[in-house]
């Protein structure tokens, strides 16, 4: 399957995604799923600035992603699907996008969240989403870069 990673990362496109995961997985396409960014051309330009020539980024709303991500799974372009929160992954999963595993790469400190890993802070909403995703058969694993050990978040939510 050509979606090689479904990742939650509040910083969206940045070095860990482009270099850390992008190189070992030979990624050529990044799909950012975020309703708020689908029409934001300046933000899209800022995110695209750091991409190598071999990688391109597209920005879709959740509705567009639900419609179009399944086709990416059957094509041959290695792709990372990125969102800034677990709720977006949950919405895609319940709307029928086949997601086997969600990689959590960066959820940072905020009011109401507690730190469970140096790069993962969870609040009640995140904990509920992890439980829902796991109950739907989606593994939720924290791992900022491939060199880090994966950590199942189910027991910590």
């Amino acid at each position, binding site marked *: 399957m050509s979606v090689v990673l479904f990742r939650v990362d509040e910083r969206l496109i940045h070095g860990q995604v482009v270099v850390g995961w992008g190189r070992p997985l030979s990624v050529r396409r990044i799909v950012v799923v975020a309703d708020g960014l689908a029409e934001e051309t300046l933000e899209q330009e800022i995110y695209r600035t*750091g991409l190598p020539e071999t990688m391109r980024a597209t920005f879709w709303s959740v509705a567009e992603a639900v419609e179009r991500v399944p086709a990416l799974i059957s094509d041959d372009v290695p792709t990372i699907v990125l969102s800034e929160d677990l709720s977006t992954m949950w919405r895609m999963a319940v709307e029928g996008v086949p997601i086997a595993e969600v990689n959590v790469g960066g959820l940072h400190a905020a009011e109401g969240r507690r730190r469970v890993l140096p790069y993962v802070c969870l609040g009640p909403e995140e904990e509920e989403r992890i439980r829902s995703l796991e109950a739907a058969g989606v593994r939720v694993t924290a791992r900022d870069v491939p060199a880090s050990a994966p950590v199942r978040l189910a027991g910590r939510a």
Partner: protein
Amino acid sequence: MTERCAVVVAHGEMAEGLVSALARVAGPQENVWAIASDVEGGLAQAIEGLLAERAAGCEAVLFSDVDGGSCGQACRRLLARGVVRAVFHGVNLPMLFEFVFLQDRPFDEMVDEIVSKSRRSIGVHQ
């Protein structure tokens, strides 16, 4: 003339290290500060907070490490909002030397000179 100030924004300890190295060579600079990428509460907010606290009325520029990296992205957002006047990327020590030397020049001239001179500082001897 409006005073100028600068914030170096970079991953890990690079920004602190560059500002420390700058102080070692050119003496302590009262208008050059450092912010690391993993600052609590968000990078753009931290830069804006620092400028509001220490640099009111100052014409600010930012020096980021990687164009398009998370530091460069935060800097670009502040530029888009008019919080700062320029964002340099690919910061290195010669670039900061040039800011110290050229900060009193007309703005566009300062910017062009900083970029061209620091670009010439990169090379290799074999």
